[in-house]
């Protein structure tokens, strides 16, 4: 026999109901057939033998009804009525099916039906709008990509590549007449490529040194160490001097000293130019480190003298 009050007395207040979810202010009912979703005496589907709900399946709404006559047949307990897609017609259907039923259930059924239709409409609208797709990232793949990127960056040697490209463009003349560099440097490179005899290149170097304005200047320089480290900066100077290098190291000619002087001239003008611009290019500083000790040598000789005077 169905004793609703007894059932409610037990599950509602005193003992355990597996569908009940309690929060601080209110209790909810997780039963799928519950019409309001709250845990109440009038909303509990277990404690009411005459009960009705609206449920939605794949966009279709159904009216479920339970009467006490079928309480003994749990398999056939709920009567399922398909509601029409038209909102007003469906409301009439609900009214017609739940005629003579308690006011509360009728009202709550209609409310629930309204809410369901509203959210179905919203779902249909959202599908038409932009949908955000979440693409899962594989952690392993991401880690591997990061490492590959680092390695690729090292292999790329970007600064060198950019500088090389810019110098190439300068040589090919894409810049036109903007930069007025002495032309004989280009000729020197060209002739080096054409002629492969060492003596020719030496003669050209000596002639050009004679043309320098600062022939008479004296510099205090270290020995061959200076030459090699500074020469490595210039890729082309390396090419020019592969043959002449050996000869220079073997025989100390006057041309060697003059070459050193010329290099120092160039380096000094470069450093002065870069200082005047007020910039410190990343490569310039690295290059300057190699040449730095030449400057230091020069300065050290003058500074201590001045210091000693002041003290």
């Amino acid at each position, binding site marked *: 026999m169905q004793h609703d009050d007894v059932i409610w007395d037990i599950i509602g207040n005193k003992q355990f109901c597996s569908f009940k979810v309690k929060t601080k202010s209110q209790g909810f009912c997780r039963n799928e057939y519950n019409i309001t979703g709250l845990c109440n005496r009038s909303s509990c589907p277990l404690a009411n033998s005459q009960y009705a709900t609206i449920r939605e399946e794949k966009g279709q709404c159904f009216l479920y009804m339970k009467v006490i006559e079928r309480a003994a047949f749990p398999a056939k307990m709920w009567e399922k009525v398909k509601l029409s897609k038209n909102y007003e017609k469906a409301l009439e259907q609900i009214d017609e099916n739940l005629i003579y039923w308690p006011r509360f259930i009728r009202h709550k059924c209609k409310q629930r039906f309204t809410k369901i239709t509203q959210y179905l409409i919203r779902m249909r609208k959202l599908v038409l709008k932009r949908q955000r797709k979440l693409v899962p990232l594989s952690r392993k793949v991401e880690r591997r990509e990061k490492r590959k990127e680092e390695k690729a960056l090292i292999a790329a040697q970007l600064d060198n590549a*950019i500088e090389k490209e810019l110098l190439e463009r300068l040589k090919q003349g894409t810049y036109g007449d903007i930069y007025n560099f002495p032309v004989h440097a280009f000729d020197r490179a060209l002739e080096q490529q054409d002629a492969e005899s060492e003596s020719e290149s030496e003669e050209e170097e000596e002639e050009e040194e004679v043309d320098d304005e600062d022939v008479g200047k004296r510099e205090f320089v270290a020995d061959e160490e200076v030459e090699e480290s500074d020469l490595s900066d210039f890729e082309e100077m390396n090419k020019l001097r592969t043959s002449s290098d050996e000869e220079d190291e073997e025989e100390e000619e006057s041309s060697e000293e003059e070459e050193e002087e010329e290099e120092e001239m160039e380096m000094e003008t470069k450093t002065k*130019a870069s200082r005047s611009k007020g910039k410190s290019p990343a490569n310039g500083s690295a290059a300057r480190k190699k040449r730095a000790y030449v400057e230091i040598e020069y300065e050290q000789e003058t500074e201590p003298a001045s210091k000693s005077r002041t003290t």
Partner: protein
Amino acid sequence: EFMHLKFYSKKKKNKKPKKKSPEGNAESSGVEKEEEKMEKSEPGAAAFPPTFSVSEIKNKQRRHLMFMKFKQEKRKQKMQLKKKKKKEREALGDKAPPKEVPKTIENQRVFDETMVDPEDEEVAFDEATDEFSAYFNGLTNPKVLITTSDRPRGRTVRFCEQLATVIPNAHVYYRRGLALKRVIPQCVARNFTYLMVINEDRKMPNGMVLCHLPDGPTAHFKISSVRLRKEMKRRGKDPTEHSPEVILNNFSTRLGHSIGRLFAALFPQDPQFVGRQVATFHNQRDFIFFRFHRYIFKNEKKVGIQELGPRFTLKLRSLQKGTFDSKFGEYEWVLKVSNFSLRRQKSCDKETN
């Protein structure tokens, strides 16, 4: 210590993968591996069992010690070998064999058939008639629209602003939940040539959709390691309004060529050399590194570069033929993420040495 260890070795079986046997060889007087059986039958053998591997010692400290010794021995042998080789090389002088070139990924790559030959007529013909021909013939000027995904965070917004300073004639617009498919016809109507969408995830830009507008190809990139201007070390002042030069390195396959043209068409055809600014897209192993520099020629052999502007790396994820259409578009190339990295086998799709 070694005598004590002999007890462990007696218990082990004969069939052992003999990986770390050289340790025994180094210590003992070169006992062969086959003689292990004989050693087992002689309980009083003083020689150190050769097939004893370091990993069998249960005691961690002792195991560690033995392993260190083993490593040192190996290192010593390596050094000796090196010295010997060096001596030989010096002794031979000029007749010494040339130094071996170390193997790099770029060396080991299998040749890719899609490498573009500079004189390839078919490629030249294709490029004369593709979507970029209008730009390369000087008919259109680039006009770029930069936008983001919904609700961009500060970092992305700043990134977009900096991109707009790098690319001349670029406009940043705030995306207010608009659908790209509706944005595109509006852009075309206003004579934009490029649409660039920076996608954001967790407050960082992580994707870029670059769409060439009058139904041009759409490229989808993954952005990584973004550095904004104020995070750069030793940077220069802000870039000026001059149009920069463009350097495209290593875009040498067919796919690389089309991507290279995609990047080239972002910038106006005639760069202003007065500005001395250069934007570089360098492709290395399928990663495209973007840098923006200011250069100065110190003399005809030396140039100094100073980095301004943002830097980021791109990796191409897909190339689509028409404008942006993720559902029905025709994909020309899609990145395949293979867990098994076939580094030595097929070359990467886009580049060369």
